[in-house]
């Protein structure tokens, strides 16, 4: 027994000593926590922006991309542990606004809290950093209408229809297609394929009558494959991916089924594959947020707040942009100036932003 105990103690001590370098990195700097709703390339861009702001403001950053996608029960323990650590501020991409409101309200009373990408406006958060998702959804709807001027078959893919951004984006697309506010569509069979059930929104038939929710990047490709198989052979088909990982998944499946020429793809966010798809003429366009700026502004605002400065809190939605192969002139939509950057220019700027972050 005693040799075993000795061995245990020695190894225990060795492990404790091995962990000391990690402890010694502890600093007296203000600590800011940022937690996302899933792990995705989109959030890597936000992380780069957050790192840049942390370097500039000289604060310590803890950036967590949620390992369990869209799982609010996995997100809250991370936030709680930061509150216990006494961080100077927390930015969160809310997963389930309704059910997280109670916890986030409690947290907002203890720590400066801002929401980004996905809002929960009843929590007492200091500000929301993100686009107007409903307007961005309408921009997607306009792109669909432009791609299929005579109407056609549409399928919408999204990670979550429960999140505030998911709901708003989807409703924006549907309202634009139907030409009315709060459109719910009319249940119908497809005009040329009675086996395909869905809903009619104006001139557009929505496959299954609702956005296809995948719940995780891992499910995006199989879901796209299943829908592509069902719409194969139909004319005027447009597939819309509303979360960053959806357009690459649609593109990959359309390519593998040799359907690239048969379908129009419209994306959301700036995944590298999406941008390359636009440059290659395989994707019509993508409506982009600015994840780099989300990360940057979240940390900038919280770092300033921790130092008693409220001036960096964001008061207006961040404008969305529409990236196309050739770009185009600015347009004013509902009083907001919308830019139409050329994909090559947009990608170059994005890479420059990333390169500007010191490792």
């Amino acid at each position, binding site marked *: *027994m005693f*040799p*075993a*105990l000795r*061995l*245990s*103690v020695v*190894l*225990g001590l060795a*492990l*404790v000593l091995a*962990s*000391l370098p*990690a*402890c010694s990195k*502890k600093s007296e700097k203000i*600590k800011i926590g940022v937690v996302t709703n899933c*792990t995705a390339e989109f959030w890597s861009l936000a992380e780069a922006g957050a790192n840049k702001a942390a370097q500039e403001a000289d604060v*310590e950053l*803890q*950036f*967590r*991309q949620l*390992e*369990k*996608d*869209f*799982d*609010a*029960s*996995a997100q*809250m*323990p*991370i936030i*709680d*542990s*930061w509150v*216990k*650590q*006494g961080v100077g501020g927390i930015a969160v991409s809310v*997963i*389930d606004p*309704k*059910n*997280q*409101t*109670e*916890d986030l*309200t*409690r947290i907002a009373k203890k720590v400066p809290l801002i929401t980004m990408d996905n809002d929960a406006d009843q929590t007492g958060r200091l500000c929301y950093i993100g686009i107007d998702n409903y307007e961005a959804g309408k921009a997607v709807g306009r792109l669909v209408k432009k791609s299929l001027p005579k109407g056609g078959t549409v399928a919408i893919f999204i990670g*979550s*229809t*429960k999140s505030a951004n998911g709901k708003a984006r989807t409703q924006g697309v549907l309202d634009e297609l139907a030409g009315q506010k709060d459109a719910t569509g009319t249940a119908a069979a497809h005009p040329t394929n009675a086996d395909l059930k869905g809903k009619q929104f104006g001139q557009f038939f929505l496959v299954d009558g609702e956005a296809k*929710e995948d*719940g*995780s990047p891992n*499910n995006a490709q199989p879901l796209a494959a299943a829908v592509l198989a069902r719409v194969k052979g139909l004319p005027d088909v447009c597939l819309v991916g509303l979360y960053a990982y959806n357009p690459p998944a649609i593109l990959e499946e359309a390519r593998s089924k040799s359907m690239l020429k048969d379908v129009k793809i419209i994306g959301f966010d700036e995944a590298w594959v999406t941008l390359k798809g636009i440059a290659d003429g395989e994707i019509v366009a993508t409506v982009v947020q600015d994840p780099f700026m989300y990360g940057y502004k979240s940390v900038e605002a919280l770092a300033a707040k921790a130092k008693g400065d409220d001036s960096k809190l964001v008061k207006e939605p961040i404008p969305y942009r529409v990236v196309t192969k050739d770009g185009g002139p600015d347009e004013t939509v509902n009083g907001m100036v919308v830019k139409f950057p050329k994909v090559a220019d947009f990608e170059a700027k994005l890479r420059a932003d990333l390169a500007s972050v010191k490792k």
Partner: protein
Amino acid sequence: MTRILGVLGLLVVLYTTLITSHPKAGEPDNLISVANLQGRFGIITLGAALVIIVGGIDLSIGAVVGCSAVLFGVLMNKGVHPFAAVPIVILFGATVGLTNGSLITRLKLQPFLVTLCGMFVFRGFARLLGGTLGQASVIEGHPEYKDPIRTLRHLLIGKDPIDGELIFPAQFILLIVLAGLVGFFLHRTAYGRYWYAIGHSELAAKYAGVNVSRQRVVIYVVCSALAALTGVLLFLDAPSVQSDNAGFSWELYAILGAVLGGCSLRGGEGTAVGMVLGAMVLPVLESLVNFRGDASDVIPVVIGLTLLIGAIVDELIRQRSRIHR
């Protein structure tokens, strides 16, 4: 004693590292949070460990947790009172266990296969039942359930009924009570001796007059009922549960806890104290990586390597113990 020495040493190291990692990490409110998570994982670990002791495996635990959590929300949405919904959900779990156990003992199917199929089936059931459910959405539809839900949350999770602040580790207390019961049956009654005997040698147990099939079915019922109870706890603790994610891969956490706690996957070995200690490891580790502020990309590596080192230390201790015996 030797069997739990390794996991005890690992826990000492992890707690020491956690407490020295940050001035706030050792404060009671963080330790209560960690204990609560240990309680939740511990309850499924008890079930998994019992199944392992009788020489079986249950891969459906995580899916049963998820399905039960969703079922609990759906029942309340349909107008079932929260106090009535809890036993219904646990009964559902027991039925799952009865089905698993019967398929394994009557049809002589492999436990791995039966429970793997169960994993898919109950995850699918969870999806069919509903997408995302939470206390706020239930209360919105049934405002009269607000007080019963808050009462359950207070009693079973330890959260303040008003603002949801965690004030005591009710899940850990529940684990200790349940572990006490499991320990009593395992170490103080003939049933425990039957279970060890079945795990060591099913044939020998059968010749000794043990009703192997009945005992196995009972264990699977207990395991799935505990998983269902954990589903209820998850619903009461989490802001919301999602049918795709709730309890996802928790069967592996439960099996890991059981093995770290001294259960042999060959069956016939394990103690109630070991089960509790084994289940305590992962939550401390998760709190540690949160407090250290490790980058997202590094966390799975840190967790995996620490558990591997723990397992190696444990094995070395056992080998040395055998040499010195």
